[in-house]
Structure formats: structure tokens, C-alpha cells
């Protein structure tokens, strides 16, 4: 992994059209501004992982799906 030191207000350019700016630093928290084309999706990593995990759980095989639904309807 490439590691660069930046100060508040300084930026990093990635390729032609992505710019990452250190907007503010406070204690152990850093505010980061990101300029990127609209088709580039940007997410907090933990949120993205959580969605991945839930999708994987949701795609698990459901034994007797119809039966479960019918049983539920019958109640």
C-alpha cells in the first residue's frame, strides 16, 4: 500500500479525475473530501462490508421457502 503524508488542505490526485482532500483533522478523526466522477461509488468501508454480508446471508438457500410462507399465512 502506498502511504503519503498530507497536511490539512492538501490533496492527493488519483488518475485523471479523482481528487482526495484532507478537509479537517481533529484528534484521531480526519475529514476527507472526495471529488470523483459520478459513476464511482464511494462508501464507508464498514457500511459496504455490512451490505455485502447481509446480501450473502440473504442469498443463502432457504429450505422449504414456500412451506415457510404458507405456514406463516396460515397463522
Amino acid at each position, binding site marked *: 500500500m502506498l502511504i503519503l503524508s498530507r497536511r490539512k488542505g492538501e490533496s492527493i490526485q488519483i488518475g485523471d479525475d479523482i481528487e482526495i482532500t484532507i478537509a479537517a483533522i481533529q484528534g484521531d478523526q480526519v475529514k476527507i473530501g472526495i471529488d470523483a466522477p*459520478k*459513476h464511482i*461509488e464511494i*462508501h464507508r468501508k464498514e*457500511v*459496504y462490508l*455490512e*451490505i*455485502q*454480508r*447481509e*446480501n*450473502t*446471508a*440473504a*442469498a443463502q*438457500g*432457504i*429450505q422449504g*421457502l*414456500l412451506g*415457510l*410462507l*404458507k*405456514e*406463516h*399465512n396460515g*397463522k
Partner: protein
Amino acid sequence: MKRNTKYHGEIEISESDIWHFENGIPGFPDEKAFVLLPILDNGVYMVLQSVMTPYVAFVITSPFLFFSDYEFNIDDATLEQLSIEKEEDVLVYAILTVRDPFANTTANLQAPLILNQKNHQAKQLILNDPKYKTRHPLFANKSGKVKG
């Protein structure tokens, strides 16, 4: 074309049935083509079935049936990406994590599926609203009044 499915056996799919998820969905980046298949006949629950991979299929529902105050804005990037022009063209579904018994099933309200009926482009949108999580109990508020 004939395709095997997870819950519906072998079915015939035509090109016009296919919803295109250009970037796949999180966890399934290579699954770019899905079809919507009904379960039972009341239209409440459906299956989002991968065209390419029989075992990749999600049980989905309209979140508004179960969570009457559910709302969010679709960001400009998504509107542009899916070429959405009118609200009426948009279908919204929530992916369910089905549990046994079904009463314990949860809905992912943090990442709804957005489908543009005009061009069949679709994606799973990740919301930034802290109100919405990945596991909302489907029957928490209604004690099972809405039944599938």
C-alpha cells in the same frame, strides 16, 4: 433462453424480462442480470433470480407494504446512472433475509433495490441515513397483519 433457478425450477426467460445491474450488487459483483419471479400468487413476495447463477436468488418485497414511513431520496449520481427521469418509472424493493419461522424475517432497508422500468437498469442503492439498517424485523410493527 432456458435457465435453471433456485426456487422455480427451469424457466424460460426472454431478454425483455431481464433487469440489468451494471455493477452487480455488493458481494455479487459479477451478477449483472436478474429476473423477477413471483412467489405464491398475491404479489407480496418475489424472488430476484440471477440469470447466470441458479443458486443466487434473493427474496424481496416492497418495503412500503411493511414500513409505511420508509422514505429516502435517490441521489443524483444514481438518477444519472440509471437514466431515471420520472418517479413513476421507479420500482423499489427490499431484500429479505428469510428466517425460520418466517415471522422472524428481516428486511434490508439500508440498501434498497432501485429499478427503472423504462430501461430495465437497476442497482442496489446504499443509503447514508442512520435510521435504516440491514436487519429490520419485517413484522415488528404490525404483528403479522400484512401477510404474504
